[in-house]
């Protein structure tokens, strides 16, 4: 098993979030907002979708050495699951469900003559003897059978859940949000099952310029999006929390210095700061090629650096919020009482202030997630995002620009990136909204 840097950090992140969720669940005063989220069908359905994405991302984060390749190439669990897609490369573009290539070329016929026509694809629809007549029926059959198997699986699970006789759990199943969760799960599982079973015979989302399956690319891109959205917060949180709370609590010169730091960072346009740092990383990498000999390690380091830099540029907003909140909290009676009792400042910060600003931290983390995923695409477009060899939605969109100008239009790469990105960001936005509604005291009172 190979553990890349981002992999290790992802494991750390998963552990942290599980611990945090467990901690939240135990806090008495956090129960009410958590229950409010659990009662909202939209929030729970989008959380389910997010967890499905996270599962794919996690499967893509477990790397090990490829058994049958000679080099030091690492494959992930997702690569193994998508083995057929990964190996079924064509020569160049092909449309979704196509059996013929995108461009005409000279074909050698059996009798020795040549013909100028669209070639058959090597893998897409290769099992069809006569594509013109069989194609529509075959696609329909395969879709139906894949869907019915996936749906059947889910129905069985649903039946098992429904048959559960325990009275308390039965009440739980009947609530609107659990129905939403089951509906979302049903759609995702049966949809995935259909696409996966189809992709053994066809390229469901077509192939790109070098003939790589686009569906495989989008699946791989999920990890990049999630890493950018989540690891950045891992970088940003310590900075924002420590500086924000300290500035608000100690006031005086500490406050001045911290305010100075974040105004300075804020005043540099963040895109330029990111660009400058990425340029530096690139120069460093070209000057020290011995540390980055492996392509995967190189791409991984760049992804990690991008998260670091994004974290450094984005902690200031949360820091300012935390500072303002701490300024309010430090005048509260319980903090004054703790001070009067002689509790050390560090202890006050940790025991009394930190738990009371946690809701702000939580809200801003979920709110930032979607904007970071969107930012990745923009940064990749300016060439200061992830490594060009990394699969990411940004890189797919970037290449799609030229593809849209082709004739006939190559629309499938862009559409695939659009659909997946939209699903992830929409789910994140909806979930973030309900988290904010539940945890923000001002909004909680209003409703």
């Amino acid at each position, binding site marked *: 098993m190979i553990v890349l840097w981002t992999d290790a950090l992802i494991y750390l992140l998963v552990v942290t979030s599980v611990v945090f969720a467990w901690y939240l669940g135990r806090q008495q005063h956090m129960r009410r907002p958590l229950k409010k989220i659990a009662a909202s069908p939209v929030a729970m359905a989008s959380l389910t979708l997010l967890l499905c994405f996270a599962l794919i991302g996690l499967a893509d984060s477990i790397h090990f050495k490829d058994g049958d390749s000679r080099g030091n190439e690492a494959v992930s669990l997702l690569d193994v699951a998508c083995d057929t897609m990964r190996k079924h490369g064509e020569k160049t573009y092909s449309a979704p469900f196509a059996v013929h290539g995108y461009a005409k070329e000279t074909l050698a016929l059996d009798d020795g003559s040549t013909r100028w026509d669209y070639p058959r694809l090597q893998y897409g629809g290769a099992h069809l003897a006569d594509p013109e007549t069989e194609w529509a029926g075959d696609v329909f059959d395969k879709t139906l059978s894949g869907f019915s198997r996936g749906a059947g699986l889910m129905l069985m699970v649903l039946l098992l859940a429904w048959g559960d006789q325990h009275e308390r759990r039965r009440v739980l199943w009947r609530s609107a949000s659990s129905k939403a969760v089951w509906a979302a799960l049903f759609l995702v599982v049966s949809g995935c099952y259909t696409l996966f079973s189809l992709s053994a015979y066809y390229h469901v989302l077509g192939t790109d310029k070098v003939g790589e399956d686009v569906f495989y690319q989008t699946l791989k891109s999920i990890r990049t999006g999630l890493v950018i959205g989540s690891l950045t917060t891992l970088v940003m949180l310590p900075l924002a929390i420590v500086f924000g709370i300290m500035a608000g609590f100690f006031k005086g010169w500490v406050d001045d210095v911290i305010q100075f730091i974040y105004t300075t960072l804020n005043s540099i346009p963040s895109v330029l*700061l990111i660009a400058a740092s990425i340029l530096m990383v690139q120069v460093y990498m070209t000057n020290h090629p011995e540390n980055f000999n492996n392509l995967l390690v190189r791409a991984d380091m760049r992804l990690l650096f991008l998260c670091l830099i994004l974290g450094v540029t984005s902690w200031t907003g949360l820091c300012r919020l935390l500072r303002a909140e701490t300024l309010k909290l430090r005048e509260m009676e319980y903090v004054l009482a703790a001070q009067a009792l002689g509790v050390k400042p560090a202890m006050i910060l940790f025991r009394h202030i930190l738990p009371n600003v946690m809701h702000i931290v939580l809200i801003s983390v979920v709110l930032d997630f979607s904007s970071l995923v969107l930012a990745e695409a923009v940064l990749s477009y300016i060439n200061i995002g992830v490594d060009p060899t990394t699969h990411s939605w940004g890189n797919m969109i970037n290449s799609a620009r030229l593809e849209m100008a082709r004739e006939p239009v190559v629309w499938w790469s862009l559409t695939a990136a659009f659909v997946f990105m939209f699903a992830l960001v929409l789910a994140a936005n909806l979930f973030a909204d309900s988290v904010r509604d539940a945890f923000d005291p001002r909004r909680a009172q209003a409703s």
Partner: protein
Amino acid sequence: MITYIIRRFLYALPLLMAVNVLTFVLFFVVNSPDDMARMQLGQKHVTEQAIQNWKHQHGYDLPLLWNGGQAGGKQLTDTIFYQKSVNLFLFDFGISDSGRNIGTDIRQRMWPSLALALPSLIVGLLVNITLALLMVLFRNTYVELGSSVLCVMLMSVSSLFYIIGGQFLIGKLLKLVPISGYDSGLAALKFLILPVIISVVAGIGSGARWYRTLFLEEVEKDYVRTARAKGLTETQVLFKHVLKNAMIPILTGVVVVLPLLFMGSLIMESFFSIPGLGSYTIDAINRQDFAIVRSMVFLGSVLYIAGLLLTDISYTLVDPRVRLS
């Protein structure tokens, strides 16, 4: 008031100094001038002499911070830090790594940037505020629910999709306006229509939602209840009273970004090949021209700080309750 502004100016100086030092550290300490020379001249077949020549030509052959070889004040001034950074304070941006005068370039490219950014801002503001007011007017109905959902969906689409989709639909399929390009004078108008429309549409989701929350906060307040009790209609209340009071946060939010409009929009300008500062920056990033990127970083921070100052001043102008001290 005057003393306050002067104090803010004095406070801006250390900030700019810090920005300067930070960019200097980023650009010169992490990679040496030798690396930069190699990057500009190409990785292979570069003689030591060529590198020395390049460094001398661009003034990178001095020590970084302290020149021990010189006497007196020259120990400080004859260094890369002094030569390259202090001149920025006088807005003397020097020569780019590819040999062009950065100051002239910036002055030239500022106007196309502004021609795109200003209409986008104004039209976007009008559209967003109108939509938000309508959403508040129809609050607690299906209209509001539907439009909220629509806003979230619009927000979840990457701005790149709006641009590519808009270019494809309006430029390529319908052939209403040219896909990209720029012209001087009034002829630029037909090139600017599409980018302005797209940037307005791309901003509707988050913008309308943001203004809606502002208006909703105002609608709860006492003066609104008084106005209703007086017998005013809901539209009169919204457009006369709520809008006026909500103008304060809206206005200050706009004033912050006003100076930054000069910097242009990176993505828009490069997609539509408008020769503004945004595409200038992107080109510099792609060519790895550090001198330009450094100047743009400095210019950006100056404008940001100017924006902060303008915000504070505009607060006092629109809201007499706020006193600066």
